């Protein structure tokens, strides 16, 4: 091997990422080549310099406390999301207001379907409010679909409907109906559409609901349950649901 072939391997060599055979080849070359040896030494010295210069930051004790308290005192989906006090107060007040209004609007014996619709709407609103719309931003279905691999144990349908006016924007993980779910994000003009997906426990009826100015559509497709939420009008969202189910 000559120097040009060795150079690209030197980083992997000092990082102990080469297999045995390649390592031996690099070592053999280093014995006879002062130039490559000097580079190897400089990489080593950079490594030990970085490693021993106390460059790592440690989590402040107050932060640790705050994090542990927040998961100990609050159930998962209501956990505080931001440490900035004013921001947090604002969001809390908003959430309390939301809850009070929701309580006033809801009849006492709330049905399972309505509860799910409300929860899905809250997640939709929160995804826009908390600035956590996407973990993977891509208009490419072949980027979004594999992104979910290893994060969830089911594979939601990921299709782009840009040609039909519903471009795919990205995806994220969310928490709904007491489980981790896949959330796909689409746009329709200025409107955002959240599609939540999780394995269906039993076949449920396809429904379309109007609640609090939002449209919520439920579909069962190939063993997965899809809840589609948007402030888009029912007609257009139904068109989207139809495309999605095809």
């Amino acid at each position: 091997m000559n120097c040009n072939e060795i150079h690209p391997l030197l980083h992997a060599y000092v990082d102990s990422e080469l297999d045995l055979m390649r390592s031996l080849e690099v070592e053999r070359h280093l014995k006879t080549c002062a130039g490559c040896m000097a580079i190897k030494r400089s990489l080593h010295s950079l490594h030990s310099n970085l490693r021993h210069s106390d460059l790592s930051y440690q989590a402040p004790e107050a932060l640790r406390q705050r994090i542990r308290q927040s998961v100990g005192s609050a159930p998962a989906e209501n956990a505080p999301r931001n440490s900035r006090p004013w921001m947090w107060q604002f969001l809390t007040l908003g959430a309390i207001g939301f809850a009070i209004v929701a309580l006033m609007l809801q009849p006492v014996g709330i049905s399972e379907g309505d509860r799910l619709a409300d929860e899905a709407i809250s997640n939709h609103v929160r995804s826009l409010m908390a600035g956590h719309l996407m973990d993977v931003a891509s208009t490419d279905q072949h980027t979004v679909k594999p992104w979910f691999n290893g994060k969830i144990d089911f594979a939601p349908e990921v299709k782009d409907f840009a040609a039909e006016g519903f471009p795919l924007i990205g995806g994220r993980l969310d928490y709904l109906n007491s489980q981790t779910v896949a959330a796909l994000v689409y746009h329709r003009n200025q409107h955002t559409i959240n599609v939540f997906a999780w394995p269906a426990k039993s076949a449920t009826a396809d429904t379309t609901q109007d609640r609090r100015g939002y449209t919520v559509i439920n579909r069962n497709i190939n063993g997965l349950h899809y809840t589609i939420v948007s402030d888009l009008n029912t007609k257009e969202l139904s068109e989207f649901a139809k495309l999605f189910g095809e």
Partner: protein
Amino acid sequence: MHMSATDSQAQFEQVVVPHLDAAYNLARWLAGNDHDAEDIAQEASLRAFRFLSGFRGGNSRSWLLTIVRNTAYTWLKQNRPQTLVSVSDEEWLDMEDSTTLTSQSSALHHADRDVLRAALEELPVEFREVLILRELEGLSYKEIAEVADAPIGTVMSRLARARKQLQDYLAKKGEK
């Protein structure tokens, strides 16, 4: 998958809490200041708590760091989009000769902490993160690829570029 609150808390103590230093370190290097790093680390920890049932065993540190990295990028996109408008890997390769490595080790021996910090902060964020994950957190290439959501080949080229730029920066400092 249903877990009781105490189960979740116990799992959180086991899976997330031991890696809070690593989480904060990555957040701090990506955000550039204490205050924002704390926000990101906290938000990421809470997301980790919510997604605990999605953790399938394996390396809990890379799992948490992946969430920290995603949270930080979402935050950067909103608050400092300019930091993410960095050169792509290909353009970066064009800018400099990819095979030329430096061997000025003399400058490196004397680089102190502040100089190293400044040098790291100069790097584009995608290059800084691979260096932090490799040199400070000791992650393997495969783990870095997972955390940074990039192919191993890209991780390797970013590492090489990052080291080269760091060496150049330090060599320049050494001359002054």
